[in-house]
């Protein structure tokens, strides 16, 4: 079959690779109908996530049709139209049972690297390096889905493919940020980043009853899209002092909940941009935490900061003093999609959550390297490039 393979830093090619096979009785093979770029892939492309191997198939946010099931699959059958969570969860370990699916104890079959890096191993993720299980990704004609009874969700008839696609990753990630960030009715919520994830976090905050939601980015088309499709206010961080602006808009308090949806390749203005970029190049610092730092300073006393952006290792100049003295709660996670996807599909069915606008570019799998160039460099207003392997 055809697949998009990582070959090295900033190098992607479309290759012929063997078709996936059922390897476990609880597996299914899914024919991929739609599969999309995610900000997390950019960290793979940039070489920030260790343990990629040339030839690895990337991609983890996808929708398709089941074409084969293992002998122990109970909840799905051939021909089901499903959206699949980017995170693989077994459904029966302690963390899965407690709805913390990205902490699944059985789905990362290569746990050593992350145990060394982080102290223990989180769940496996499709197409996201050998540190996170070495699973082949979804930018392919077919993909093997382990524990399919838990990770795949039938799409309601009333929801079209392009909306349902983002129930795989962007929408549940954003929802988790707002939910576990503790958004309550009446809150003011700030979201850093207006990519797919930030927009979904902003929408979730609104649906959870936030009084005001303020989203921050620099790309005019992303800011405009967030105002128009999500219904949030925005700030262009290149035109103003974000912390001062947030204070002014929140009666001097700062936002109650701050959601960071930027990640380790954050951009910044001012001296920290030069300082952290240089340290990252030299390998002295692994990640650039600009948006997290800003969120911590901006957050109201006693508020909460949720880190949705992906970080791999160590950061420098981290304002621990502000966290301690302002009584902040700091949390983060890879998404617990299985916990939220049924509710999100339901909201889509009711028309309360729309995501199709994120798909600014649609193309074949052969064009995927160009899709990543558009997405990575934010060219031509690209927010998500969606590939159709069977077009």
């Amino acid at each position, binding site marked *: 079959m055809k697949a998009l393979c990582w070959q090295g830093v900033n190098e992607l090619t479309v290759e012929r690779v063997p078709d996936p096979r059922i390897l476990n009785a609880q597996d299914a093979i899914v024919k991929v109908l739609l599969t999309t770029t995610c900000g997390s892939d950019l960290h793979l492309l940039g070489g920030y996530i260790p343990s990629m191997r040339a030839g690895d198939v990337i991609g983890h946010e996808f929708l398709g049709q089941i074409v084969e099931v293992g002998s122990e699959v109970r909840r799905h059958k051939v021909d089901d139209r499903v959206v699949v969570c980017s995170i693989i969860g077994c459904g029966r370990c302690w963390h899965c049972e407690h709805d913390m699916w990205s902490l699944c104890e059985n789905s990362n079959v290569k*746990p050593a690297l992350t145990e060394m890096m982080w102290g223990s191993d989180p769940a496996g993720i499709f197409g996201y390096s050998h540190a996170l299980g*070495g699973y082949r990704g979804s930018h392919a004609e077919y993909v093997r889905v382990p524990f399919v009874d838990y990770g795949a969700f039938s799409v309601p008839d009333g929801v079209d493919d392009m909306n349902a696609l983002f129930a795989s990753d962007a929408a549940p990630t954003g929802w988790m940020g707002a939910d576990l960030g503790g958004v309550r009715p009446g809150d003011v919520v700030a979201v850093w980043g207006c990519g797919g994830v930030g927009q979904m976090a902003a929408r979730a905050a609104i649906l959870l009853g936030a009084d005001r939601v303020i989203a921050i980015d620099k790309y005019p088309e992303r800011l405009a899209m967030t105002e128009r499709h999500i219904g949030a206010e925005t700030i262009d961080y290149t035109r103003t002092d974000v912390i001062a602006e947030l204070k002014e808009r929140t009666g001097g308090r700062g936002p109650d909940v701050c959601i960071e949806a930027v990640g380790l390749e954050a951009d910044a203005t001012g001296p920290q941009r030069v300082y952290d970029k240089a340290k990252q190049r030299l390998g002295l610092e692994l990640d650039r935490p600009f948006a997290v730092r800003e969120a911590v300073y901006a957050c109201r006393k006693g508020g909460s900061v949720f880190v949705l952006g992906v970080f791999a290792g160590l950061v420098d100049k981290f304002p621990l003093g502000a966290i301690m003295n302002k009584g902040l709660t700091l949390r983060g996670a890879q998404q617990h999609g299985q916990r939220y996807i049924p509710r999100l599909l339901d909201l889509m069915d009711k028309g309360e959550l729309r995501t199709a606008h994120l798909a600014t570019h649609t193309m074949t799998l052969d064009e995927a390297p160009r899709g990543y160039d558009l997405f990575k460099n934010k060219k031509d207003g690209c927010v998500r490039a969606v590939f159709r392997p069977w077009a």
Partner: protein
Amino acid sequence: MNRAVLGAVTVGGIGVGVTRWLTSRRTKARAVREAGRWMMVTINRDPDEVVPDGRLPEPLARLGDTIEVQVREAPGGRGTELGARPLRPVPAGVGEVLARLEGEDPRQAVRRALRQAKCLIETGEVLRPDEQPDRPTPTGRIVDLAAQRAGGEGRL
């Protein structure tokens, strides 16, 4: 094995069935105290499902009398803490590094078996890694080696 009974006999950290299973190896066990730390996993099931009638889960049973095992109820309703360690002496220093690279440190097999036992008991099967397209490159080989060993490495 009844849960209450097991709770009572695990004071020393060893379940009834497994204690019996271990007695014959007590001498050996003493000789290799250096085998060191127990490697532990917590399994989200009651002890009587983890070691029914004292029988070890398949992946550990396969290691036969090369290991010793302990079983105890986990606190807070988290299931069972299952531990194992090799009975034969484990390499140290440079020998350890070499043995691990070769995949011959006995702890690697024990770690892998513990993880497999957990997956088997919790999900009904041992999850298999995806097949890799076969095109080794120099850096790919390092990743391959690390990945192959990954089931038997880590902090566990």
